């Protein structure tokens, strides 16, 4: 039972990385949303400037 392969260490590693991968994916969506909010602020700023020029 001390043989690493028999003890399924490989799959344990897969399992643990899967957990963090899923959470990482969620963090990435958060980062994406952050970018979207930034873009909205930019476009809103431009709109206000545009209005003031006129």
């Amino acid at each position, binding site marked *: *039972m001390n043989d*690493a392969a*028999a*003890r*399924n*260490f490989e*799959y*344990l590693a*897969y*399992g*643990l990385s*899967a*957990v963090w991968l*899923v*959470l990482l*994916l*969620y*963090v990435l969506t*958060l980062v994406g*949303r*952050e970018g979207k*909010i930034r873009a*909205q*602020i930019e476009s*809103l700023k431009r*709109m*206000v400037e545009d*209005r003031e020029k006129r």
Partner: protein
Amino acid sequence: MRQKILIGIGLIAAGLLLRNIWLMLTNLPDEAFQGAIFRIIFFHVPAAFTAFLCFFASLISGIAYLRTQNLKWDAFSVSVTEVGLAFGAANLITGMIWARIIWGIWWTWDWRLTSMLLCWLLYAGYLVLRRAVEEPTERARLSAVMSILSFAVVPFVFFSIKWFRTQHPQPVLYGQGKMDTGYRAMLYGNWVPLLLFAIILIAVRMEQERRQRELDALRREIHAF
């Protein structure tokens, strides 16, 4: 300040997690039948706990929103549901990897798996519903109702498990669970860092929701005149 607190929580969580993994690999003996793979349970089960805690929080914040009409509760409700879905996915995937080794198949229509999947779909529906409503106040109201109805189904889903034959290992924390106290301590011990990570994610998401709301209001203000 807020950021510093969040970073602090993150550091604590990471520290706890490293310690737990170290202990898991060095101190705890292999389970007699399953080998090392059984250690996945220390993530699998706490992930499920976190997911259901999140869904429950979504119910509470839904009720709180309908009571107070305060959009902060709505922001909390979305954040918590999204994080719950992430942990639910982690639970499902680790479960599948474990099943591949122990049962030899990726997926089985065991009722515990199926009901987790069902809850996952239910709350994914909540997010779809939110995307279909433009106006923030109406969105908050309708999705609060949705989260109340969703949570009302959860017990029915779980009742039905009992009456189906299940291949799943006996519930580990109650009943005739033959779980060693060392394992049990680790199970709960590992829940703490996962929960802390969940709190960080929820806090970040809520902040985004708040800014999005301010942006929408600003845009309306500009477009209106």
